[in-house]
C-alpha cells in the first residue's frame, strides 16, 4: 500500500485526497466519522505529492517489491581511480 498514513499525526484535512494525481486516496465518511483511505494502492505513481504537501508530515511512502530498484556494488569504488578496463 504505497502511501501510508500515520493515524496519530493525520488531522483528516483531506488535502492528500484532493491533490493525488491518480485519485488513489479517498475520503470516506461513515456515521459522520471521516476516514482517509488509500483505496487504489496499485494505481499509485509514487510521485509523493501527498507526502510533500501533507501539513502534518503524516504520510510516508512504502515502495512495493514490484518496483524494486536493482543495484549492484560498483566495481571500482575508490573515487578518482580510472575504472576503464
Amino acid at each position, binding site marked *: 500500500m504505497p502511501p501510508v498514513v500515520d493515524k496519530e499525526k493525520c488531522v483528516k484535512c483531506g488535502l492528500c485526497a484532493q491533490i493525488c*494525481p491518480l*485519485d488513489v486516496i479517498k475520503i470516506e465518511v461513515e456515521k459522520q466519522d471521516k476516514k482517509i483511505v488509500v483505496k487504489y494502492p496499485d494505481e499509485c505513481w509514487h510521485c509523493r505529492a501527498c507526502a510533500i504537501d501533507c501539513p502534518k508530515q503524516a504520510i510516508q511512502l512504502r515502495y512495493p517489491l514490484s*518496483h524494486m*530498484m536493482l543495484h*549492484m556494488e560498483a566495481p571500482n*569504488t575508490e573515487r578518482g581511480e580510472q575504472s576503464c578496463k
Partner: protein
Amino acid sequence: MQVKIRKDIVKTDVLIIGGGIAGMQAAITAAENGSNVVVAEKADTRRSGCGATGNDHFMCYIPEYHGEDFNEIIREVTETLVGPLQDLNLLRLMMKRSFELVQKWESYGISMRPTGEWSFMGHAMPGRRRYHLKYDGHNQKPLLTKEALRQGAKIMNKMVMSELLTNEEGHVVGAIGVNIADDVPEVVVFQAKSVIISTGGALRLYPGLNPAYPFNVANCPADTGSGPAMAYRAGARLVNLEMPYVHSGPKFFARAGKATWIGVLTDFHGKPVGPFVTQPTRELGDVTADIWQGVFQEKMENGTGPVYMNCSKTSNDDMEYMMKAFVSEGDTSLVDYFEQYDIDLHKKMVEFGTFEYNFTARGLDIDLDGGTTLPGLYAAGNTTGNVRGDITSAAVFGHVSAESASKYAKQVKDYDVSDHPLIAEKIQLFNAILGRETGAHWKEANSMLQQIMKDYVGMKIRSETLLKAGLKYLGDLKRYSREQLKADNSHELMRVLEVLDLIDMGEAVAITSENRKESRGSCHQRSDYTFTNPLLNNKFQTIERTKHGIVADFREKNR
C-alpha cells in the same frame, strides 16, 4: 448507479482540457489576453501531470548567454536529445520564445536560477554548447496555479473530459466532461468558443517494465491520450503515431529525469558503454542514452548487459548537487528510496532499463499558432505530435496556443450546444457502463490492449500480417469493451473512459504503422519492408477521420 447531469452549461471563451504545465501556461496567457478561461483538470492542477512535483531542465536559448548564433543551439537540440520527429519551424519558434517564458516563470516565483545565475547543465555532448537551463521546479505547479487564479482563470478540478463538440461546419464549440469529485459521476457540458487540448502523452498503451503494474511508468500514468483521442474522433489530424517514444531510467522503479543523474553508464565491470564521459560532472552527465535510446534493452538482448548508472566517481559536491536536483525534478521518491533501502550511490550502481513505448510528443498536428486542423481547436505540450521539448514545449506552446485561441474566441459567436446529439449519446454510454450488474473490469481491457499492442503493433518487429491481425483484434476489444466494461463509481468510470481512449489511439497507431511500408529507426522495423525509403526521409505520416473514412497520408516536414 446512473450519472447526475448538471443543469447549467459551463460557458466560456477558452476551454483548456488538461491542467498540466501547458494547460496552466495557456490559462495564464488566455486570461491575460482578456478571455474568460476555464481549465478542466482530471486531478488537481496543483499536483497533476508529468510536472506534478517538479522538473529541473528547461530548454532555453538566452542571447546574452549563448551569443547571437541561434542556429548553433538549434543544431545541438536536433543532434542530441530531441531527434528528428519535429517540424523545424516549430522548434525554432519554441527556442526563440523560450527565454520569454523563462522570464515569465521567474515572475510567477518559480526559481529559474537557483544558483543566482543562468546555469546550463546536462543533456549535452562534451565540448558542445549546453542549452538545458537548470532550474528548481519543485513547486512549479502550485505557482502556475496561483498565477492562473490571480489572472482570473477558473479551474475545475476532478473534471474528466470525454468528448469534443463540433458544429455543422466542423468547428469545435464545446466539450462533454464528467465530474468525479463525488462517488456518483456528474456529466457537465461545456460551451466554448475555442478549446485548447493539453492532456499530455499517452501512457499505459504498451506494457511497461513490469506489466503487472501498469502505473509503474516514468511519465504521469493519468495521461492516457484522451485529448488526441477525442480530437481524432472529432476529425483533427494526428501525426507521428507510428514512431513511438522511449525513455529510460532506473529498473524496475520507472522514474523520469535520467539527465539529473550525474554518472557514467557502465557495464557490469564498470566499463563505460558510450564514448562521451569517464569522469562525470554536473556540467556533463552521460549523454549516451539521449543519443542511443535503446542502449539498455539492446544490451540485455545481446547478452552484453546489464547497463548501470555508475556514480561511484562523482565528486561529493556533485553528488549533493544531484540529490538536490532530484528534488527540483520531482523525483523525491528516488532520494526516499535510496534512504529506505540504504543505497549509497558512491558504492552502488543502479541498473537502468529502456522503458515502454509511449506517445510523448506524438499526437496532434499543430501549426505555428498552436492550431490543429479543426477551427477552434488548439493544442500544446506533450499531446502535440510535431514538436517536443518537454517543459519548454509545454510552456511556449501553452502560451502561443492561448494567444491564438483568445484571438479566435473574440472573432466567433457563441454556438448553442444544449441540444447537441453527442450529449445524449455519451450519457447513454456512461449509464450503460455504470448500470451493469456484472461485467468486465477496466484492468482486463487495459491489460489485453497492452498485450495486443506488444505482440501485433510491434515492440520488436512489424509486418502487414501482424498489424492487420492486430487491428482486427483491437476492433474486437473495442466492441467487447463497450459492451462489457462496468464501473461502480466515478473513479472506475474515469479508468474505463481512459481505456476506451487508449484503444482508439492503439487503432490509429496500428493503421499508420501498417501504412508506413518501410523500416525506419529502431521503433519501426518491418520484416516485409526491410529498407528505409529515402523518399520518406523528410516526411511525417498523418492520420485523420474524414467523411470518406480514415485517411493516413504523408506530408512534408516543415523546415
